[in-house]
């Protein structure tokens, strides 16, 4: 199924990887930037009480 996949020399492979490395770093930075935007989101106060059960005792949300 993938028998025709192109193979490369060490130099060709490295050149292709270095090209992609730029895209990898760009994606990392973009992901960091989005995480920053998440931090800047406003907050919503939780005014309702929620209760959860544990195997030992009742626990509340705060």
């Amino acid at each position, binding site marked *: 199924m993938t028998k025709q996949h192109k193979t*490369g020399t060490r130099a060709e492979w490295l050149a292709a*990887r270095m090209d992609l490395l730029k895209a*990898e770093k760009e994606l*990392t930075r973009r992901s960091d930037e989005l995480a920053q935007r998440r931090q800047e989101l406003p907050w919503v106060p939780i005014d309702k009480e929620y209760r959860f059960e544990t195997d030992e005792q009742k626990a509340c949300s705060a």
Partner: protein
Amino acid sequence: MCPLCVANAALLAASATSGGGVTAVVVNRFWKRKRKNQTNEKQMKRAEMEMPKVVSAQKWEAARKALLVKEKALSHARDALAAERRRMPWLAVEKEYEFDGPKGKVSLLDLFDGRRQLIVYRAFYDPDVKGWPEHACIGCSMLADQVAHPAHLNARDTTLVFTSRAPQKEIKRLKGRMGWELIPWYTLTDDFDKDFGVDEWHGTNAFIREGDRVFRTYFINERGDEQMGNTWNYLDITALGRQEKWEDSPKGYLQTPPYEWWIWHDEDAA
């Protein structure tokens, strides 16, 4: 190896050679950064944290929806990058490599464990690394803690292994103590780490085999390794990807519908 471990290894090297040089530079840079971080922490404690606005649920939902557009764009960019990785040329591995495993000497081909693809993470665990012999490098240990149940990678014909220089006896003890029993972990015995860019720093190499012929298909390190550990991101650095129909892969790649290959990890995947 993480910055903490580099600093420790460099200190050992510096004390052994008394020269310093490059290693001393690494140590200085590391400790400067650490001091800077400590100062930042103190300043943060003193200054009140700047709080985001507090809003109604409706306003919050609107803000989240606006961000969702960016979230989706990032997911698509990630998919597009994975598609480019799948179009990398393959590099034939012509040298023979030998590893020590729990059952003795094995070859690179053996590490595939009969599967089509192999992912090799280089962890730093040896006498030169801080924490020895109780612990592996702190960053490598953090990564080991992220690793998902191997059944899911195996379900996509892919094997994940860790490698380091420590003898098998120490690796066995470490895996038991840290709860990493499910990660196959081999001992490096030759130039494998040097040849695949992981002799001085952690990194993840992806391989594929055609019969007995092994090819290197991709390599991720530094912050790229932060994303490793979960099944999706591991598959996204492999030559075959997630092997799902929606993916933009070279023509003729085996693809199945998403979700259908999912298993419970206690099912017999074989």
